[in-house]
């Protein structure tokens, strides 16, 4: 188990290292001079432009040898210095991101967890129940095949435009000030429900289908047949199958995180929801390199942490890893 952990940790560190390197490499080695591009976009008057040019040249450290630039990049990261945003000049990138992150967390965490639980429960329930398998599951296939933004657009159109029940944009009413009052929380939830639902529904379909396929295999496993031979009630047999089928679904969660992040991104774009996804869009449109780099870094960190938590969870629920690790093969 210890070995399992060290191995995982090693991979995470390596991944982080590679990701940061990519993050550093790209603006430097892509065609064109990023600083020029930046300034062209910023369209400032000549004097400011000159000042900006020297500022960015310094910030990118383009006058230093490559290894030094790279080293400085790492040092800066560990100092939480991700540069200054152009889009929201002169705010530091780190500040902008930290402001956006809570919106992401409160949107993503509930939608991922709830859809995972509900989807798995439902998938297990529908498997080998003929009418459900034939009626409800096809909906699951459609849901999981639906592009996140399309469902978001549809929900927005139907529930915000055709029937104006929910607001179409932003995380709270523009007039509302961020506070811990009930009014604010109510307003926040009011804005939260559509992005949440669209994320929830797409993921729900995926988990339900996955569980359905998984549990059908488990119900054909030897241990299921043995339970049946001992006359165990259907309920017990299915419960055991569920417990086994849920393990690959946990791994599935880890594998899906990247895609879920992408889904969250476009959902935020549709609803102008001020999380990192929305930020990225703005950053792309304004060629705000520092902000893009910063957002990328944060997504990496979020995914890595989530992956790590899932790994820990996996060890808790699968005794085979706790006990077996290595050894028994050959």
């Amino acid at each position: 188990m210890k070995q399992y952990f060290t191995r995982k940790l090693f991979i995470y560190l390596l991944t982080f290292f590679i990701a940061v390197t990519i993050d550093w490499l790209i603006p430097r080695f892509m065609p064109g001079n990023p600083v020029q591009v930046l300034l062209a976009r910023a369209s400032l008057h000549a004097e400011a432009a000159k000042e900006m040019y020297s500022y960015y040249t310094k910030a990118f450290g383009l006058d230093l040898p490559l290894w030094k630039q790279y080293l400085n990049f790492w040092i800066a990261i560990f100092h939480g210095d991700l540069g200054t945003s152009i889009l929201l000049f002169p705010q530091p990138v780190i500040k902008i991101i930290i402001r956006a992150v809570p919106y992401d967390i409160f949107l993503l965490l509930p939608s991922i967890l709830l859809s995972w639980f509900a989807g798995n429960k439902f998938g297990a329930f529908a498997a080998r129940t003929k009418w459900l398998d034939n009626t409800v599951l096809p909906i699951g296939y459609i849901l999981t095949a639906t592009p996140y933004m399309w469902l978001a657009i549809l929900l927005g159109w139907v529930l915000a435009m055709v029937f104006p029940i929910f607001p179409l944009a932003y995380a709270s009413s523009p007039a509302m000030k961020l506070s811990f009052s009930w009014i604010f929380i109510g307003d926040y939830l009011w804005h939260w429900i559509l992005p949440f639902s669209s994320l929830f529904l797409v993921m729900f379909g995926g988990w339900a289908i996955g569980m359905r396929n998984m549990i059908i295999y488990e119900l054909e496993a030897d241990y299921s047949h043995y339970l049946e031979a001992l006359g165990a009630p259907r309920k017990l047999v299915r419960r055991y199958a569920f417990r086994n089928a849920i393990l690959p679904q946990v791994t599935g969660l880890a594998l899906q995180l990247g895609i879920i992040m992408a889904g969250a991104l476009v959902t935020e774009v549709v609803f102008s929801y001020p999380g990192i996804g929305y930020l990225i869009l703005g950053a792309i449109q304004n060629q705000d390199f520092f902000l893009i780099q910063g957002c990328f870094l944060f997504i990496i960190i979020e995914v890595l942490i989530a992956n790590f938590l899932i790994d820990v969870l996996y060890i808790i629920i699968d005794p085979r890893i706790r006990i077996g690790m290595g050894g028994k093969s050959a």
Partner: protein
Amino acid sequence: MSLKVKNLKVYYQTLRGDVKALDGATFTIEDGEIMGLAGESGCGKSTLSNSLILLKPPMRFVEGRVELDNEELPIWDMEKMNHFRFKKISTIPQYAMNAMNPIRKIGKMVSEILKSKKVDYKSTLPELKRRLDLVELSHDVLNMYPIELSGGMKQRMVMVLSTLMNPSLLMADEITSALDVSTQKAVAKMLVEFRNRELVKKLMVITHDISILYQIADSIMIMYAGKLAEKAPTSVIINSPRHPYTKLLISSLPDIGVKYSQRKLTGIPGKPPLLLDPPTGCRFRERCPVAFQKCLNEEPPFMEIKKGHFIACWKEFEKNA
């Protein structure tokens, strides 16, 4: 009290039609009897044992009657059979090594199964521990996961669990074939011990290894191509078999002390018929050295020629007549 099977037919459904895997079996196992069931692969011995406890698609019940201790078993009804499974009739399956849920502690699993059968785990625990002692398993196994046990240990654990409710009939399907000779011997002897202590009343031991049956069984039943060929007390089957198939089968078994250079054994030429569309008459006739006209047209019945000795062979009936 006994197990009485009358004209049991169970087919396998396939695309090309029904495979007549078990085509009319009539036999009895008395209390205290260990009956060995042998035959080559595909002869229907597993179909017979499976159909008695867990008859589900692609298996299809065709006809027949099964009586256990004077009570009819509704083997065609998955739900109703639950009433008998585990308590009256139980099995140690062929796949005993994989029979336990890999992610459940063994004790927990046992308690859950018992609970589902409305049996109290706590009050059963002392007996469970006695049984573990009997098969030389430490009580600690209850706190372990199946992966922590070796193959032989898992098999013994399944033996204990399957027999915990003192079933009247226990079926053991090829449980020794994957084991080393030393473990094989121990496991086989445990089955006898279970019977001797009356933890199970009667046993059906399915194997392709007749020499094991010689060691532990009271009677042996030989199957061929979905039909019963011969049933008799063990010593009779081994020393004076009557059915030509049994004779050939026994004589093809190498034993320690037999050497190719001194005594060359021979197998049975030919292949068993396909059961999708079995031939008329005796199913063994194509490989049989003594087959004659009658075997071609008429199917020999499974008849008692001496007390406790049943065969299905026209030639032998003729001799006997």
